[in-house]
């Protein structure tokens, strides 16, 4: 009975205040979309880092079937060449610059590739044979990349030496800047949302002061009196958060999934499913936002 009563109160409150409720929904929608966009950029950065990014700095790719580099005159790297390279890596001349290194076989490479590009159609057309084996090196000082590069680039069986970090870092710094901008916009919009929710709840409390006055007199508990107002704000914010989550999903699905991944097939993009991980966070944020601001407003404007 009480639940039904509270639900009825919420319904009448939402109806009476429709225009304000719609504006709360839109403002939370916009602010949480920006929060979500920042989250998506971070997810994308993680996606692009792939398996090795945080573990190693330099990759020595070994010759494969179709390699055309100078060191690959003998075709695919032989076990001997591979062994020589390993010995060289372990020799004091080189090992003083590196923490450790790992060998990534074609199979390992395929496995990591599949993980990173799981959302991309490219994964179906790649076989382990097409991927090069590599030594992955964790440098003591990433700045000493040149030494490794000079030592190994001309070795037989080596196709190329790449400092992956250098390639990606510039891109990541742009993306981090973008997520910072998104977070700042989200911050401003969130302040907007909080103030708007407070105003809406205030209006709502004012327009129903007759009811709340009577409720108080007949001894309704604080919860019964306040809950409809709080839930009004929370429901509006949850709708806004759901809309924001939907928008992020649509961006991941249509923009990244259908457009960008065709334009840049060699880049790993996040999947629409991954953006849905952000949805609970956004909805939770919306609930906390609306709940606290309406609670604080009621404390001032609704005597209980």
């Amino acid at each position, binding site marked *: *009975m*009480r639940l039904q*009563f509270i639900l009825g109160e919420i319904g009448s409150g939402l109806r009476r205040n429709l225009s304000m409720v719609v504006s709360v929904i839109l403002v939370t929608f916009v602010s949480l979309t920006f929060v979500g966009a920042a989250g998506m950029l971070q997810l994308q950065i993680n996606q692009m880092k792939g398996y090795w990014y945080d573990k190693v700095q330099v990759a020595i790719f070994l010759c494969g079937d179709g390699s055309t580099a100078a060191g690959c005159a003998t075709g695919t790297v032989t076990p001997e060449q591979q062994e020589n390279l390993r010995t060289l890596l372990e020799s004091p001349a080189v090992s003083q610059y590196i923490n450790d290194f790992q060998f990534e076989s074609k199979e390992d490479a395929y496995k990591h590739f599949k993980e990173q590009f799981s959302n991309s159609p490219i994964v179906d057309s790649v076989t382990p044979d097409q991927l090069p084996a590599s030594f992955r090196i964790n440098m003591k000082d990433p700045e000493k990349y040149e030494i490794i590069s000079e030592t190994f680039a001309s070795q037989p069986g080596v196709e190329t030496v790449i400092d992956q970090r250098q390639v990606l870092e510039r891109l990541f710094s742009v993306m981090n800047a973008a997520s910072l901008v998104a977070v700042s916009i989200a911050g401003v919009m969130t302040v907007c949302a909080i103030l708007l929710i407070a105003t809406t709840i205030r209006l709502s409390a004012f327009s129903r002061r*007759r*009811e709340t*006055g*009577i*409720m*108080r*007199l*007949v*001894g*309704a*508990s*604080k919860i*019964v*009196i306040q809950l409809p107002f709080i839930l009004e704000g929370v429901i509006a914010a949850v709708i806004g958060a759901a809309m924001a989550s939907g928008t992020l999903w649509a961006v991941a699905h249509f923009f990244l999934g259908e457009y960008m991944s065709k334009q840049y097939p060699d880049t790993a993009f996040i999947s629409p499913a991954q953006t849905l991980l952000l949805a609970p966070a956004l909805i939770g944020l919306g609930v906390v936002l609306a709940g606290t601001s309406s609670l604080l407003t009621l404390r001032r404007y609704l005597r209980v």
Partner: protein
Amino acid sequence: MRIVEGPELYFPQEKAPAPVADLAHKAASCRVYRVMIRFENVTKVYDQNARPALDSVSLEIDRGEFAFLVGASGSGKSTFLRLVLKEDRATSGIVYVAGQNVANISSWRVPRLRRGIGVVFQDFRLLPQKNVFANVAFAMQVIGKSRSVIRDTVPEVLKTVGLEGKERRMPHELSGGEQQRVAIARAVVNRPGILLADEPTGNLDPTTSMGIMGVLDKINQNGTTVVMATHDDDIVNEMRKRVVELKNGKVIRDEARALYTSMIPVVGQSRRLKDASGREEAADANLPRTDRSPRSREDQL
């Protein structure tokens, strides 16, 4: 009649007293039980620079009593009612309601106190978009009564206040007297031990007012303590109940079975002395507890 079966039910915090060895203590707690509302030197100051709204008021209203609070606007009648409801805190002194010091009731238990007190106002305060039944049911819904209980109780209470068959009417379709009856039904539907009425007949014509008084009297007969603040001298004179007169925040008269205007003259004062003197002896039987000061009716109007 189910409105009031036993007022002690309405104050759950007022449990049966635990056995107390100390006789004096026992006696004291018994006294508290008899008294529904008790003010001990209560002072209420709203504005430090103005005179207090209530000035050291001491008063007891017993269970089942019917008391009028009379006095000019600003004499402290509404403040008295607000203090009983714990809408305000007394600046000093103690307010007991049903044996409990309201200052000791924590804010989350105030609703429970208010469930034991029904309130009626001059302006009815009905919800205009709800019909008669829904207005009365509202008071039960918000404290979580089940639908079946509401369905049983509301028609019964409406019958008590004389509104049978008008359940589906909207407030604007009712006369003022009928609206006030709805408000009374709402105030008593949860069977409070106390009914506070703040000028309940202020907006009504004399005949309708008498009807309302009949309803309040009926509720009082069933054991509910009724405290009514009023300006309406005809009603007070007709009812012949206890009259507590306030002036500038002080109790200046407290008589049982009294009239609106004091019948006790003060020598050398007031043009109404003459007509009052005729009944001097009769009124003397109910000696006031405080200073005697006859008030002219014109003061009130």
